Structures are given as structure tokens and as C-alpha cells.
């Protein structure tokens, strides 16, 4: 599928990282958390802090696949008045200064559906979005948003999970593009720590089905974990740890922007260690 659509910033990024022998740090934050201004500052500084790809969460009242950390991030953003238009505006502002770092919008289907699928895809593409992750749209519902997204030139990032066995994987990989997001645990975000041995086996198995880059996420918190898990795939996704840092810095009256960037920097360094080991 990825061959039939124009290359995106995501494709370019993985080509470059592979040439450099590096792994991708995919950083997740929720748009508008804890407020629009702070969130914009966090977003704008993430590439310099070491993020290779940014996942920007579209907040939702009922994030069924997320653990407490990202649930609370959504609640903070919504309480501060975040809307889909504001989220798209954040991407536009980011793009004024950064034309290389891919941005993936991540969230749940209802806010997209209510905004209007066609209008959403058009506005997201125009704002400079590169891909989408919509957690509650499995391949069975590809007609809804996945196919139209591909036709708009946006990657539709698929999640593969420990329950994606060999019978299921072809279905998951059909229409997949950009990269494959390997959910390293059975569970919600930010709860369990992934077991590296099991992840290694799964990633090896998935590799037999696809050439897409594989990023590992859902339980990665520390630079050490980033190093271990990064070595197994093409990148790691870190979310709960970053948004928890926002909450904690705010709670202590500290500088949330600096704290998040500091953690991103440490994670990026951990990953560089991983690249050297392999």
C-alpha cells in the first residue's frame, strides 16, 4: 500500500535513520495538556530534544485503551478548553518552523467522526500532519477512515499486539503504511513493563510478514528500557512517562516544558546507546 501513495515525512525519516544506523524516538504528548500555550512550547521543542517523530494526542473523554496517565492528560487538556481546531492549529504553528519532523495525530474515532471525516482529512493534511493512529478503528473498519486517509496522502498507522497471531497479522498489515506500532503488552498504556524477550520474539515474527519499520510502545518509561527495546525494533514510543512529567512538574510549580524536554533528551541518548550495540 505504501508504494501506491506518495512518500511522507514518516517514510523519509525512517530512510534517514536507517542510513544513520539510528532508532526513532517517537514522543507522545496530548495536545493542549496542560494548556494550549504550554503544550505548543513542548511540541515546538521536542525535535531539538531528540524526538524523531511526534505523536500528538487528540484528547477524548473516554480513552478506552489508555491507562491513568494519558486519561488524566486528556482530562487536563479538555478542562483547559482544547478542541480539534486548536489541535490542528498547533500543527500548523509547528510547521512554520519545522518542515521535517513527522507528526502523527493519535486518538479515538468519535471526535474525528463528529468533526467530519472528509473535513478532518483535508484540514489535517493542510496543517502538515503526516499520519493518523485511531485506536478504535481496526482493519475491519478500514472503509471509515483508513482508505480515505491513504487517498489523502496520510499514513494510517496500524497497531499490532501480542494477540496479533500469524493468522491475524496479514489483516493488520493490509493497508498498513508509515510504520507498524507494536503494542508491547496486553494492556492499556503506561501500566505494565514489557518483557524484552517476548517482544523480541514477536518482532522477529512480525518481520517475516512486513518490511515496514516497527516501533515498540505502551510501556516504555526509562532511557534503559528505551535502549533495550529500541535494539529490538526501529524505534520506541514513549507517552505516559512524558505526560506524567508534565503533571508532576506542574504539581510542583516547576517548568513543565523544560522537564519534558529533559526526559526526551535522556530517552534519545538511551536510544543512541541501543543503536551502537546493534
Amino acid at each position, binding site marked *: 500500500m505504501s508504494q501506491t501513495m506518495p512518500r511522507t515525512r514518516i517514510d523519509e525519516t525512517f530512510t534517514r535513520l536507517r542510513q544513520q544506523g539510528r532508532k526513532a524516538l517517537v514522543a507522545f504528548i496530548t495536545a493542549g495538556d496542560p494548556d494550549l500555550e504550554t503544550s505548543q512550547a513542548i511540541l515546538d521543542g521536542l525535535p531539538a530534544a531528540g524526538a524523531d517523530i511526534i505523536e500528538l494526542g487528540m484528547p477524548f473523554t473516554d480513552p478506552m485503551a489508555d491507562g491513568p496517565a494519558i486519561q488524566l492528560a486528556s482530562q487536563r487538556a479538555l478542562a483547559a478548553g482544547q478542541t480539534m481546531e486548536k489541535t490542528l492549529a498547533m500543527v500548523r504553528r509547528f510547521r512554520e518552523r519545522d518542515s521535517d519532523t513527522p507528526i502523527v495525530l493519535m486518538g479515538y474515532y468519535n471526535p474525528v467522526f463528529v468533526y467530519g471525516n472528509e473535513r478532518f482529512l483535508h484540514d489535517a493534511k493542510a496543517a502538515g500532519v503526516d499520519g493518523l493512529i485511531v485506536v*478504535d478503528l481496526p482493519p475491519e473498519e478500514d472503509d471509515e477512515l483508513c482508505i480515505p486517509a491513504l487517498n489523502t496522502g496520510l499514513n494510517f498507522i496500524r497497531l499490532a499486539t501480542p494477540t496479533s497471531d500469524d493468522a491475524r497479522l496479514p489483516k493488520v498489515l493490509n493497508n498498513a503504511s508509515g510504520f507498524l506500532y507494536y503494542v508491547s503488552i496486553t494492556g492499556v498504556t503506561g501500566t505494565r513493563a514489557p518483557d524484552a524477550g517476548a517482544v523480541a520474539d514477536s518482532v522477529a515474527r512480525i518481520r517475516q510478514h512486513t518490511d515496514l519499520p516497527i516501533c515498540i510502545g505502551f510501556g516504555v518509561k526509562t532511557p534503559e528500557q528505551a535502549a533495550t527495546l529500541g535494539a529490538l525494533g526501529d524505534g520506541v514510543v514513549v507517552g505516559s512517562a512524558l505526560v506524567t512529567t508534565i503533571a508532576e512538574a506542574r504539581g510542583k510549580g516547576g517548568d513543565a516544558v523544560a522537564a519534558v524536554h529533559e526526559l526526551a533528551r535522556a530517552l534519545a541518548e538511551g536510544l543512541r546507546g541501543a543503536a551502537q550495540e546493534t
Partner: protein
Amino acid sequence: MNDQKPNTFTAQPDERGRFGDYGGRFVAETLMPLILELEQAWREARADASFQAELDDFLKHYVGRPSPLYFAERLTEHLGGAKIYFKRDELNHTGAHKINNVLGQILLARRMGKTRIIAETGAGQHGVATATACARFGLECIVYMGEVDVERQQPNVFRMKLLGAEVVPVSSGSRTLKDALNEALRDWVANVENTFYCIGTVAGPHPYPEMVREFQAIIGREAKEQILQAEGRLPDALVAAIGGGSNAMGLFHPFLDDEEVEMFGVEAAGRGLNTGEHAASILGGRPGVLHGNRTYLLMDEEGQITEAHSISAGLDYPGIGPEHAWLNDIGRVNYVAATDEEALEAFQLCSKLEGIIPALEPSHALAHVMKMAPRMDKDRIIVMNMCGRGDKDIFTVAKHLGVEL
């Protein structure tokens, strides 16, 4: 939306779990294999006569089915119009229709070799029914319940604990039924091997809306046979309260192709449809996607889910089963609403005139019967689903009437 009537209303959903444009399987990838496994297991069980025989046996000897169809003579006289019959599912073991569905799902879980059962509950009726069946079969049972509901449904919380279930108070989001459902889904994602999710209404991803409907359709099948015996003809109207819509779907479904039978689904209008404090997803909501299916939802202009309000915890859900959304759009079922006040009045009237203390949920259905019956001729017939008894609600009602217990 679509004025061309299909020749049967009972052929839905399609293989993608769609009722028209509603329903579907909007879940995270982790759950997809589980949902497909469930669908497969259910299709096999459904085709297996021994499964149905086992279920029938439990429904008869454990639940007490068939439930009577009762002519509410004094209420009929009082309202002065159509003859009113109650389908008395409040006489079931555990006091509501919920057990019909739970037994079906628990027998299926056993067949699938699952040892751990999870459920969400609002009023606690589905939680109690699930805890009951789990006790009967020696299965581990975990019930998710919003903190707000734990607070207002204390008797049912204690009941579940007596039955050996673990009740987990949910503190996320608005701390009510929708959040309990989210939390149950999160549990399921984390415990994919041994866990069966027993959903309490005709909502959730396919195949739940269809499966729960099938387990509840015993209500309508019995009612049809019973009314034919009592009156020699089909009723003119069916009336049922709508939370997620399972007792209504159960009563309506076997009658859907009987064109002469009008149907009324009664949503909770809470403090009034125009106050914003209600639980009427069809009358006060719009189509969206939540909890695995597309249906009418209460939400703001951004697609953020808003809180429902009803005096009845069992109706306090910001969505409705997808089949109802479809039946509304094609015009087969009429969706109406009753307020907290109207339900309270019906609750008291029924207690005094019929010696039946109804649950607050069917009190909403009764409130609509009170509006429609007097305008109908005396030879007309209404069948209302008395889907639960009111013991669980006496504290709530006392509080609203200013009585201290």
C-alpha cells in the same frame, strides 16, 4: 432518513455487525481477536441444541421462566382506556430481566473455557445478575461500577459482595456507567487469556448487540404466546424503558415484523429534555462512535461524551444499542421520553393500585403508558415490560419524597 421499508426487520445485523449504518466493531486491535473468537463460539453454541437445552433448563428452574403476562386491571380502570398488561420480568431471580442475558453469556463463557468474568454495572442489577451466575458456576467475578453509582446503589454493592464478587469502584471520567464500561474494556485488554466480558445490554462491539438481543428475546417470544392465549390477538402497542436498550429489544424483536404492533421505547428525560440533564440518547443526542459501536450518543459539539442524568441509575447511560438507532431512523419504533417526576409518579401509582413496586427503569415505561392509555379505546391492548422490581430503589424514592428511612 430512509423511508423505504425493508420486507423484514429481523435480518439485522449484517456480517460486519451493522444495523443499517449503526453498530460495527470499533475496538482496539488487542481486542479484535477476542471479539472474533467470541463471535465464532457464539455461532457454534447457537447452532448446538444442547446449549439451548441447558440454557432453557436454567431459565426454567433457576430464573423462574416463563414470567407471567399479567392483566393490570386496576391500573386499566384507573386510566380508563386501553387494556394494560405487564410482562413480569421483575419476578425473575435477582429481580430484573438482566439474568436472561447473563445466564446465556456465562454458559457461553464456560463453553469457551474462560474462568474469569468481568462486567460493568450502573444500577447494580447487571452486576448482581452476573455475580449470581458466577456464584452458581464457581467462576471468579469482577464488577466495575462508577464511584457515583457505588454511592447511590449501596444495597446492590453489598449483594454483589455477598455473592462473592469483587466490586471495583471506578474513579475515572464521570465515575458512572460509561466509565465502568471503559474500565471493563481496559481490564479485558489486559487479561485476554482467561477473561470473558459479560456486557449487560445490547451495546458494545459486534456480536454483543445481536447476542444480548437473542438472549433477551425470550421476553418477546413468551409475551407473544401469552397475549395470543389471553386475548386471541396481538397487542396494539408495546412499551419498554430504554437504558442501553436490552429489555426493550428483548420485548420488541419477536414482534418487529408484525406491522400492526406499534412500539414505544421510553428514554429517560431526567429533569427535562430541554435542561440538558437527561439520558435520552436518541431524542437528545446525535450519531457517534463509543464503546465499540456507532449509535446515538450524548455529546458536545466536539464529540466529547457528556454525562447522562436520570433518577434511575439503570437508564443513566449516554448511548443506546445500535439496533435501536436503526429502528428509530427507519421509523419502526417510536422513541419517547419520561422525566424523573413522571417516573416517580408512575412508581407510586403502580405500587398503590397493583401491589407491584416497580423499579425506576420500568416506571419510565409506565409513565408513558399513563400518557397513552387514556387516549386509546377500551378494546385496545398495551403490553409493557415490567423489567425490574423496585426494592433496590426505595432509598432513592424515599429521598425524593422527602422521607427519612
